Protein backbone atom coordinates (compact mmCIF):
# COMPACT_ATOMS: atom_id res chain seq x y z
CA UNK A 1 0.00 0.00 0.00
CA UNK A 2 2.66 2.63 0.88
CA UNK A 3 4.54 1.33 -2.12
CA UNK A 4 1.52 1.89 -4.34
CA UNK A 5 1.11 5.42 -3.00
CA UNK A 6 4.74 6.16 -3.72
CA UNK A 7 4.38 4.97 -7.30
CA UNK A 8 1.22 7.00 -7.62
CA UNK A 9 2.96 10.16 -6.50
CA UNK A 10 5.82 9.48 -8.92
CA UNK A 11 3.33 9.13 -11.78
CA UNK A 12 1.88 12.49 -10.80
CA UNK A 13 5.25 14.19 -10.43
CA UNK A 14 6.44 12.90 -13.77
CA UNK A 15 3.25 13.89 -15.58
CA UNK A 16 2.93 10.33 -16.78
CA UNK A 17 1.57 10.68 -20.35
CA UNK A 18 -1.06 8.00 -19.86
CA UNK A 19 -2.30 9.61 -16.67
CA UNK A 20 -2.34 13.06 -18.28
CA UNK A 21 -4.32 11.78 -21.24
CA UNK A 22 -6.95 10.25 -18.99
CA UNK A 23 -7.23 13.40 -16.87
CA UNK A 24 -7.60 15.61 -19.93
CA UNK A 25 -10.29 13.40 -21.44
CA UNK A 26 -12.17 13.38 -18.13
CA UNK A 27 -12.07 17.14 -17.91
CA UNK A 28 -13.12 17.70 -21.50
CA UNK A 29 -16.05 15.24 -21.21
CA UNK A 30 -17.32 16.59 -17.89
CA UNK A 31 -16.82 20.26 -18.76
CA UNK A 32 -18.63 19.80 -22.08
CA UNK A 33 -21.47 18.06 -20.29
CA UNK A 34 -21.67 20.87 -17.73
CA UNK A 35 -21.67 23.45 -20.53
CA UNK A 36 -24.53 21.77 -22.35
CA UNK A 37 -26.51 21.13 -19.16
CA UNK A 38 -26.09 24.78 -18.08
CA UNK A 39 -27.11 26.07 -21.49
CA UNK A 40 -30.34 24.08 -21.24
CA UNK A 41 -30.77 24.06 -17.46
CA UNK A 42 -30.56 27.81 -16.76
CA UNK A 43 -33.37 28.82 -19.14
CA UNK A 44 -35.41 25.83 -18.00
CA UNK A 45 -34.93 26.71 -14.34
CA UNK A 46 -35.78 30.36 -15.00
CA UNK A 47 -38.87 29.48 -17.01
CA UNK A 48 -40.21 27.21 -14.27
CA UNK A 49 -39.39 29.79 -11.58
CA UNK A 50 -41.11 32.69 -13.31
CA UNK A 51 -43.79 30.88 -15.30
CA UNK A 52 -47.25 29.93 -14.07
CA UNK A 53 -48.68 26.96 -15.90
CA UNK A 54 -50.64 23.80 -15.09
CA UNK A 55 -48.44 21.01 -13.83
CA UNK A 56 -45.76 23.36 -12.55
CA UNK A 57 -45.66 21.85 -9.07
CA UNK A 58 -45.48 18.32 -10.44
CA UNK A 59 -42.65 19.35 -12.72
CA UNK A 60 -40.74 20.83 -9.78
CA UNK A 61 -41.18 17.65 -7.76
CA UNK A 62 -39.93 15.51 -10.65
CA UNK A 63 -37.03 17.84 -11.33
CA UNK A 64 -35.97 17.71 -7.69
CA UNK A 65 -36.33 13.94 -7.65
CA UNK A 66 -34.24 13.60 -10.83
CA UNK A 67 -31.33 15.31 -9.10
CA UNK A 68 -30.66 11.89 -7.65
CA UNK A 69 -30.86 9.91 -10.91
CA UNK A 70 -28.69 6.78 -10.66
CA UNK A 71 -25.85 7.18 -13.19
CA UNK A 72 -26.10 3.55 -14.33
CA UNK A 73 -29.76 4.01 -15.24
CA UNK A 74 -28.97 7.17 -17.20
CA UNK A 75 -26.16 5.26 -18.87
CA UNK A 76 -28.49 2.42 -19.76
CA UNK A 77 -31.14 4.73 -21.25
CA UNK A 78 -28.61 6.69 -23.28
CA UNK A 79 -27.05 3.37 -24.35
CA UNK A 80 -30.41 2.14 -25.64
CA UNK A 81 -30.98 5.41 -27.50
CA UNK A 82 -27.55 5.37 -29.13
CA UNK A 83 -27.21 1.65 -29.80
CA UNK A 84 -27.35 0.47 -33.38
CA UNK A 85 -31.03 -0.46 -33.13
CA UNK A 86 -31.97 2.64 -31.11
CA UNK A 87 -33.59 5.81 -32.47
CA UNK A 88 -30.27 7.68 -32.42
CA UNK A 89 -28.28 4.67 -33.63
CA UNK A 90 -27.53 6.14 -37.07
CA UNK A 91 -25.41 8.81 -35.39
CA UNK A 92 -22.90 6.06 -34.67
CA UNK A 93 -21.51 7.74 -31.55
CA UNK A 94 -21.88 4.92 -29.03
CA UNK A 95 -18.54 4.18 -27.34
CA UNK A 96 -17.16 7.63 -28.20
CA UNK A 97 -16.53 10.63 -25.94
CA UNK A 98 -19.60 12.30 -27.51
CA UNK A 99 -21.82 9.60 -26.05
CA UNK A 100 -20.21 10.16 -22.66
CA UNK A 101 -20.86 13.88 -22.89
CA UNK A 102 -24.51 13.24 -23.69
CA UNK A 103 -24.94 10.79 -20.82
CA UNK A 104 -23.35 13.14 -18.27
CA UNK A 105 -25.34 16.10 -19.61
CA UNK A 106 -28.56 14.13 -19.11
CA UNK A 107 -27.41 13.16 -15.63
CA UNK A 108 -26.71 16.71 -14.43
CA UNK A 109 -29.33 18.66 -16.35
CA UNK A 110 -31.89 18.08 -13.54
CA UNK A 111 -29.33 19.19 -10.95
CA UNK A 112 -28.58 22.46 -12.69
CA UNK A 113 -32.21 23.09 -13.64
CA UNK A 114 -33.57 22.31 -10.16
CA UNK A 115 -30.96 24.30 -8.23
CA UNK A 116 -31.18 27.30 -10.56
CA UNK A 117 -34.98 27.12 -10.36
CA UNK A 118 -34.68 27.42 -6.59
CA UNK A 119 -32.24 30.34 -6.72
CA UNK A 120 -34.28 32.21 -9.33
CA UNK A 121 -37.54 31.49 -7.52
CA UNK A 122 -36.15 33.14 -4.37
CA UNK A 123 -34.97 36.15 -6.34
CA UNK A 124 -38.31 36.40 -8.16
CA UNK A 125 -40.11 36.68 -4.81
CA UNK A 126 -37.93 39.66 -3.99
CA UNK A 127 -37.97 41.31 -7.44
CA UNK A 128 -41.41 40.51 -8.80
CA UNK A 129 -43.30 43.66 -7.83
CA UNK A 130 -40.44 45.93 -8.82
CA UNK A 131 -39.94 44.31 -12.22
CA UNK A 132 -43.66 44.25 -12.98
CA UNK A 133 -43.89 47.87 -11.88
CA UNK A 134 -41.20 48.77 -14.40
CA UNK A 135 -43.22 46.99 -17.08
CA UNK A 136 -41.02 43.93 -17.58
CA UNK A 137 -42.81 40.91 -19.06
CA UNK A 138 -42.15 37.42 -17.76
CA UNK A 139 -39.59 36.58 -20.43
CA UNK A 140 -37.54 39.69 -19.83
CA UNK A 141 -37.90 39.27 -16.06
CA UNK A 142 -36.48 35.75 -16.42
CA UNK A 143 -33.46 37.10 -18.29
CA UNK A 144 -32.94 39.77 -15.66
CA UNK A 145 -33.12 37.23 -12.85
CA UNK A 146 -30.65 34.91 -14.58
CA UNK A 147 -28.14 37.73 -14.70
CA UNK A 148 -28.85 38.97 -11.20
CA UNK A 149 -28.45 35.52 -9.65
CA UNK A 150 -25.28 34.83 -11.64
CA UNK A 151 -23.17 34.23 -8.55
CA UNK A 152 -25.63 31.71 -7.12
CA UNK A 153 -25.82 29.99 -10.48
CA UNK A 154 -22.08 29.46 -10.30
CA UNK A 155 -22.73 27.16 -7.36
CA UNK A 156 -25.26 25.15 -9.35
CA UNK A 157 -22.74 24.68 -12.17
CA UNK A 158 -20.28 23.51 -9.60
CA UNK A 159 -22.67 20.97 -8.15
CA UNK A 160 -23.20 19.67 -11.68
CA UNK A 161 -19.50 19.47 -12.38
CA UNK A 162 -18.80 17.64 -9.14
CA UNK A 163 -21.46 15.07 -9.97
CA UNK A 164 -20.26 14.62 -13.56
CA UNK A 165 -16.58 14.31 -12.69
CA UNK A 166 -17.24 11.78 -9.95
CA UNK A 167 -19.76 9.45 -11.59
CA UNK A 168 -18.64 6.19 -13.12
CA UNK A 169 -21.76 4.26 -14.12
CA UNK A 170 -22.98 6.34 -17.04
CA UNK A 171 -19.65 6.88 -18.79
CA UNK A 172 -18.73 3.24 -18.26
CA UNK A 173 -21.84 2.00 -20.07
CA UNK A 174 -21.94 4.43 -23.01
CA UNK A 175 -18.19 4.92 -23.32
CA UNK A 176 -17.13 1.31 -22.87
CA UNK A 177 -13.89 2.22 -21.07
CA UNK A 178 -11.81 1.73 -24.22
CA UNK A 179 -8.12 2.29 -23.60
CA UNK A 180 -6.92 5.52 -25.18
CA UNK A 181 -10.39 6.45 -26.46
CA UNK A 182 -13.03 6.59 -23.76
CA UNK A 183 -11.13 5.85 -20.59
CA UNK A 184 -11.67 8.56 -17.96
CA UNK A 185 -10.51 8.94 -14.38
CA UNK A 186 -13.38 7.17 -12.68
CA UNK A 187 -13.62 4.25 -15.09
CA UNK A 188 -9.85 3.78 -14.95
CA UNK A 189 -9.89 3.76 -11.17
CA UNK A 190 -12.63 1.11 -11.22
CA UNK A 191 -10.81 -1.02 -13.77
CA UNK A 192 -7.27 -0.73 -12.39
CA UNK A 193 -8.45 -1.42 -8.86
CA UNK A 194 -10.15 -4.63 -9.97
CA UNK A 195 -7.00 -5.56 -11.89
CA UNK A 196 -4.90 -4.90 -8.80
CA UNK A 197 -2.88 -2.06 -10.40
CA UNK A 198 -3.21 0.29 -7.47
CA UNK A 199 -0.65 3.04 -8.30
CA UNK A 200 -2.49 4.38 -11.37
CA UNK A 201 -5.84 4.11 -9.56
CA UNK A 202 -4.51 5.95 -6.53
CA UNK A 203 -2.79 8.62 -8.62
CA UNK A 204 -6.01 9.31 -10.49
CA UNK A 205 -7.93 9.36 -7.23
CA UNK A 206 -5.61 12.06 -5.90
CA UNK A 207 -6.02 14.11 -9.09
CA UNK A 208 -9.79 13.74 -9.01
CA UNK A 209 -10.05 14.96 -5.46
CA UNK A 210 -7.60 17.79 -6.07
CA UNK A 211 -9.59 18.99 -9.09
CA UNK A 212 -12.87 18.95 -7.19
CA UNK A 213 -11.32 20.87 -4.29
CA UNK A 214 -9.66 23.40 -6.58
CA UNK A 215 -12.85 24.06 -8.52
CA UNK A 216 -14.84 24.46 -5.33
CA UNK A 217 -12.30 26.81 -3.84
CA UNK A 218 -12.24 28.95 -6.97
CA UNK A 219 -16.00 29.16 -7.06
CA UNK A 220 -16.23 29.96 -3.36
CA UNK A 221 -13.71 32.78 -3.66
CA UNK A 222 -15.39 34.15 -6.77
CA UNK A 223 -18.74 34.18 -5.04
CA UNK A 224 -17.42 35.84 -1.93
CA UNK A 225 -15.51 38.46 -3.87
CA UNK A 226 -18.56 39.18 -6.00
CA UNK A 227 -20.81 39.43 -2.98
CA UNK A 228 -18.53 41.99 -1.40
CA UNK A 229 -18.34 43.92 -4.66
CA UNK A 230 -21.98 43.81 -5.79
CA UNK A 231 -23.89 43.15 -2.58
Amino acid at each position, binding site marked *: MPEALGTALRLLAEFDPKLVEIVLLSLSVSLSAVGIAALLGFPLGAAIAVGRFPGRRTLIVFLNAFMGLPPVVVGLVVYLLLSRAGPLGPLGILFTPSAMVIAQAVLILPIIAALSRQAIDDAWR*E*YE*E*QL*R*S*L*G*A*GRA*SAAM*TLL*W*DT*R*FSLLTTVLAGFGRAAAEVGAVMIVGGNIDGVTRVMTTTIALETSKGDLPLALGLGVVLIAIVIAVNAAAYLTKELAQR*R*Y*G
Partner: protein
Amino acid sequence: MSNGAILPLRLHDVSFAAGGRAIIDGISLEIEAGPSTIILGANGAGKSVLMRLMHGLLGASSGRIEWSAPEQPGAPRKQAMVFQRPVLLRRSAQANIAYALKIAGVGEPQRGAQVREALESVGLAHLAHRPARVLSGGEQQRLALARAWALHPEVLFLDEPTASLDPSATREIESVIRAFDAAGTKIVMATHNLGQARRLGDEILFLDQGRLVERAPVGEFFSKPQSAQAAAFIKGELPWT
Protein backbone atom coordinates in the same frame (compact mmCIF):
# COMPACT_ATOMS: atom_id res chain seq x y z
CA MET B 1 -50.22 67.43 -18.86
CA SER B 2 -49.29 66.02 -22.22
CA ASN B 3 -51.72 64.39 -24.60
CA GLY B 4 -52.99 60.99 -23.59
CA ALA B 5 -52.88 61.86 -19.90
CA ILE B 6 -53.80 58.85 -17.79
CA LEU B 7 -55.29 60.89 -14.95
CA PRO B 8 -57.84 61.13 -13.52
CA LEU B 9 -57.94 57.67 -12.00
CA ARG B 10 -61.36 56.43 -10.92
CA LEU B 11 -62.10 53.63 -8.48
CA HIS B 12 -65.66 52.33 -8.40
CA ASP B 13 -66.60 50.31 -5.34
CA VAL B 14 -63.27 48.49 -5.32
CA SER B 15 -62.75 45.60 -2.92
CA PHE B 16 -59.85 43.27 -2.42
CA ALA B 17 -60.05 40.12 -0.33
CA ALA B 18 -57.37 37.65 0.61
CA GLY B 19 -57.91 34.51 2.62
CA GLY B 20 -61.58 35.37 3.12
CA ARG B 21 -60.75 38.70 4.74
CA ALA B 22 -61.61 42.02 3.10
CA ILE B 23 -58.44 44.10 3.00
CA ILE B 24 -59.96 46.83 0.84
CA ASP B 25 -63.66 47.21 1.37
CA GLY B 26 -65.75 49.08 -1.21
CA ILE B 27 -63.61 52.11 -1.96
CA SER B 28 -64.77 54.63 -4.55
CA LEU B 29 -62.69 57.69 -5.29
CA GLU B 30 -61.17 59.81 -7.98
CA ILE B 31 -57.51 60.84 -8.12
CA GLU B 32 -56.94 63.98 -10.18
CA ALA B 33 -53.78 65.59 -11.44
CA GLY B 34 -52.36 68.31 -9.24
CA PRO B 35 -52.45 68.13 -5.47
CA SER B 36 -50.21 65.55 -3.89
CA THR B 37 -52.28 62.87 -2.22
CA ILE B 38 -51.30 61.20 1.02
CA ILE B 39 -52.86 57.89 1.95
CA LEU B 40 -52.84 57.85 5.72
CA GLY B 41 -53.78 55.12 8.12
CA ALA B 42 -52.53 52.70 10.73
CA ASN B 43 -50.59 49.55 9.89
CA GLY B 44 -52.94 47.08 8.28
CA ALA B 45 -55.42 49.74 7.20
CA GLY B 46 -54.91 48.72 3.57
CA LYS B 47 -52.70 51.58 2.32
CA SER B 48 -50.17 49.40 0.52
CA VAL B 49 -52.82 47.18 -1.02
CA LEU B 50 -54.78 50.18 -2.24
CA MET B 51 -51.67 51.57 -3.96
CA ARG B 52 -50.90 48.20 -5.53
CA LEU B 53 -54.44 48.00 -6.86
CA MET B 54 -54.10 51.47 -8.37
CA HIS B 55 -50.69 50.70 -9.83
CA GLY B 56 -51.92 47.42 -11.29
CA LEU B 57 -49.77 45.03 -9.27
CA LEU B 58 -52.90 43.50 -7.78
CA GLY B 59 -56.26 42.85 -9.38
CA ALA B 60 -59.42 43.94 -7.55
CA SER B 61 -61.69 41.20 -6.23
CA SER B 62 -64.63 43.34 -7.25
CA GLY B 63 -65.26 46.83 -8.55
CA ARG B 64 -63.52 48.75 -11.33
CA ILE B 65 -60.30 50.73 -11.57
CA GLU B 66 -60.17 53.02 -14.58
CA TRP B 67 -57.52 55.35 -15.86
CA SER B 68 -58.80 57.98 -18.26
CA ALA B 69 -56.40 56.63 -20.91
CA PRO B 70 -55.68 52.95 -20.34
CA GLU B 71 -52.04 51.97 -20.74
CA GLN B 72 -51.15 49.93 -23.79
CA PRO B 73 -49.40 46.66 -23.01
CA GLY B 74 -45.77 46.99 -24.01
CA ALA B 75 -45.84 50.78 -24.15
CA PRO B 76 -43.73 52.72 -21.63
CA ARG B 77 -45.61 53.12 -18.39
CA LYS B 78 -46.77 56.57 -17.40
CA GLN B 79 -46.89 55.62 -13.76
CA ALA B 80 -44.14 54.39 -11.50
CA MET B 81 -43.90 53.10 -7.96
CA VAL B 82 -41.27 53.28 -5.26
CA PHE B 83 -41.49 50.65 -2.53
CA GLN B 84 -40.64 50.73 1.14
CA ARG B 85 -37.61 48.57 0.52
CA PRO B 86 -35.98 49.37 -2.80
CA VAL B 87 -35.18 46.39 -5.00
CA LEU B 88 -32.04 47.20 -6.93
CA LEU B 89 -30.31 44.99 -9.45
CA ARG B 90 -26.78 43.64 -8.99
CA ARG B 91 -25.18 46.20 -11.26
CA SER B 92 -24.06 49.81 -11.04
CA ALA B 93 -26.34 52.66 -10.00
CA GLN B 94 -26.46 54.03 -13.51
CA ALA B 95 -27.07 50.57 -15.02
CA ASN B 96 -30.12 50.25 -12.77
CA ILE B 97 -31.63 53.35 -14.32
CA ALA B 98 -30.57 52.36 -17.84
CA TYR B 99 -32.33 49.04 -17.26
CA ALA B 100 -35.64 50.77 -16.53
CA LEU B 101 -35.22 52.95 -19.62
CA LYS B 102 -34.45 49.92 -21.76
CA ILE B 103 -37.60 48.13 -20.61
CA ALA B 104 -39.55 51.27 -21.47
CA GLY B 105 -38.15 51.10 -24.99
CA VAL B 106 -35.78 54.07 -24.82
CA GLY B 107 -33.08 53.61 -27.45
CA GLU B 108 -29.50 53.15 -26.36
CA PRO B 109 -28.27 56.54 -27.71
CA GLN B 110 -30.80 58.49 -25.63
CA ARG B 111 -30.32 56.54 -22.43
CA GLY B 112 -27.02 58.10 -21.34
CA ALA B 113 -28.35 61.63 -21.02
CA GLN B 114 -31.55 60.51 -19.28
CA VAL B 115 -29.61 58.37 -16.82
CA ARG B 116 -27.37 61.30 -15.94
CA GLU B 117 -30.32 63.64 -15.52
CA ALA B 118 -32.13 61.16 -13.27
CA LEU B 119 -29.05 60.63 -11.08
CA GLU B 120 -28.51 64.37 -10.80
CA SER B 121 -32.13 64.91 -9.80
CA VAL B 122 -31.50 62.88 -6.64
CA GLY B 123 -27.91 64.01 -6.06
CA LEU B 124 -26.28 60.67 -6.85
CA ALA B 125 -24.29 61.59 -9.97
CA HIS B 126 -21.03 61.03 -8.10
CA LEU B 127 -22.01 57.41 -7.31
CA ALA B 128 -23.06 56.48 -10.85
CA HIS B 129 -20.54 53.66 -11.19
CA ARG B 130 -20.94 52.26 -7.68
CA PRO B 131 -22.68 48.87 -7.43
CA ALA B 132 -26.24 49.69 -6.41
CA ARG B 133 -26.55 47.12 -3.66
CA VAL B 134 -23.62 48.40 -1.63
CA LEU B 135 -25.03 51.94 -1.36
CA SER B 136 -26.44 53.06 1.99
CA GLY B 137 -30.15 52.62 2.66
CA GLY B 138 -30.90 56.27 1.95
CA GLU B 139 -28.83 56.25 -1.23
CA GLN B 140 -30.56 53.10 -2.40
CA GLN B 141 -33.95 54.68 -1.90
CA ARG B 142 -32.84 57.82 -3.75
CA LEU B 143 -31.64 55.61 -6.58
CA ALA B 144 -35.03 53.89 -6.63
CA LEU B 145 -36.62 57.34 -6.86
CA ALA B 146 -34.28 58.29 -9.70
CA ARG B 147 -35.17 55.08 -11.53
CA ALA B 148 -38.87 55.81 -11.15
CA TRP B 149 -38.30 59.41 -12.20
CA ALA B 150 -36.15 58.67 -15.25
CA LEU B 151 -39.20 58.36 -17.49
CA HIS B 152 -40.93 61.42 -16.03
CA PRO B 153 -44.05 59.49 -15.07
CA GLU B 154 -47.35 61.29 -14.84
CA VAL B 155 -48.10 59.57 -11.54
CA LEU B 156 -45.61 58.41 -8.93
CA PHE B 157 -46.80 56.02 -6.22
CA LEU B 158 -44.69 55.92 -3.06
CA ASP B 159 -45.30 53.20 -0.50
CA GLU B 160 -43.87 54.37 2.83
CA PRO B 161 -40.61 55.29 1.12
CA THR B 162 -38.91 56.45 4.31
CA ALA B 163 -40.27 53.88 6.77
CA SER B 164 -36.93 52.11 7.14
CA LEU B 165 -34.65 55.18 6.96
CA ASP B 166 -33.04 57.41 9.55
CA PRO B 167 -34.12 61.07 9.94
CA SER B 168 -31.42 62.59 7.75
CA ALA B 169 -32.02 60.14 4.91
CA THR B 170 -35.74 60.78 5.35
CA ARG B 171 -35.20 64.52 4.89
CA GLU B 172 -33.27 63.88 1.68
CA ILE B 173 -36.00 61.64 0.30
CA GLU B 174 -38.65 64.19 1.21
CA SER B 175 -36.84 66.97 -0.59
CA VAL B 176 -36.53 64.78 -3.69
CA ILE B 177 -40.26 64.04 -3.55
CA ARG B 178 -41.03 67.76 -3.22
CA ALA B 179 -38.90 68.45 -6.30
CA PHE B 180 -40.74 65.81 -8.33
CA ASP B 181 -44.03 67.29 -7.17
CA ALA B 182 -42.90 70.77 -8.23
CA ALA B 183 -41.91 69.38 -11.63
CA GLY B 184 -45.51 68.37 -12.23
CA THR B 185 -45.60 64.68 -11.33
CA LYS B 186 -48.67 63.62 -9.39
CA ILE B 187 -47.56 62.21 -6.05
CA VAL B 188 -49.61 59.50 -4.34
CA MET B 189 -47.90 58.45 -1.15
CA ALA B 190 -48.79 56.07 1.66
CA THR B 191 -47.43 56.84 5.09
CA HIS B 192 -48.32 56.46 8.72
CA ASN B 193 -46.06 59.36 9.64
CA LEU B 194 -48.22 62.35 10.50
CA GLY B 195 -45.37 64.87 10.23
CA GLN B 196 -44.48 63.61 6.79
CA ALA B 197 -48.12 63.76 5.69
CA ARG B 198 -48.26 67.38 6.80
CA ARG B 199 -44.94 68.27 5.14
CA LEU B 200 -45.59 66.67 1.76
CA GLY B 201 -49.35 66.40 1.34
CA ASP B 202 -51.99 68.65 -0.15
CA GLU B 203 -54.84 66.28 0.60
CA ILE B 204 -55.32 63.27 2.85
CA LEU B 205 -57.12 60.02 2.15
CA PHE B 206 -57.65 58.40 5.52
CA LEU B 207 -58.09 54.64 5.53
CA ASP B 208 -59.33 52.54 8.40
CA GLN B 209 -59.81 48.78 8.16
CA GLY B 210 -59.93 48.84 4.39
CA ARG B 211 -62.46 51.65 4.11
CA LEU B 212 -61.97 55.19 2.96
CA VAL B 213 -63.15 57.00 6.05
CA GLU B 214 -62.25 60.55 5.24
CA ARG B 215 -60.86 62.72 2.45
CA ALA B 216 -59.88 66.30 3.17
CA PRO B 217 -57.27 68.98 2.47
CA VAL B 218 -54.30 68.59 4.80
CA GLY B 219 -54.98 71.63 7.00
CA GLU B 220 -58.61 70.74 7.48
CA PHE B 221 -57.87 67.08 8.18
CA PHE B 222 -55.48 67.86 11.00
CA SER B 223 -57.41 70.79 12.50
CA LYS B 224 -60.89 69.29 12.46
CA PRO B 225 -61.08 65.63 11.46
CA GLN B 226 -64.63 64.59 10.65
CA SER B 227 -64.46 60.97 11.81
CA ALA B 228 -63.79 59.52 15.22
CA GLN B 229 -61.18 57.14 13.76
CA ALA B 230 -59.22 59.97 12.17
CA ALA B 231 -59.38 62.02 15.35
CA ALA B 232 -58.11 59.07 17.33
CA PHE B 233 -55.32 58.39 14.84
CA ILE B 234 -54.16 61.99 14.93
CA LYS B 235 -54.12 61.99 18.70
CA GLY B 236 -52.04 58.86 18.56
CA GLU B 237 -54.62 56.68 20.20
CA LEU B 238 -54.63 53.03 19.30
CA PRO B 239 -57.13 52.88 16.47
CA TRP B 240 -58.11 49.25 17.10
CA THR B 241 -59.26 49.67 20.69
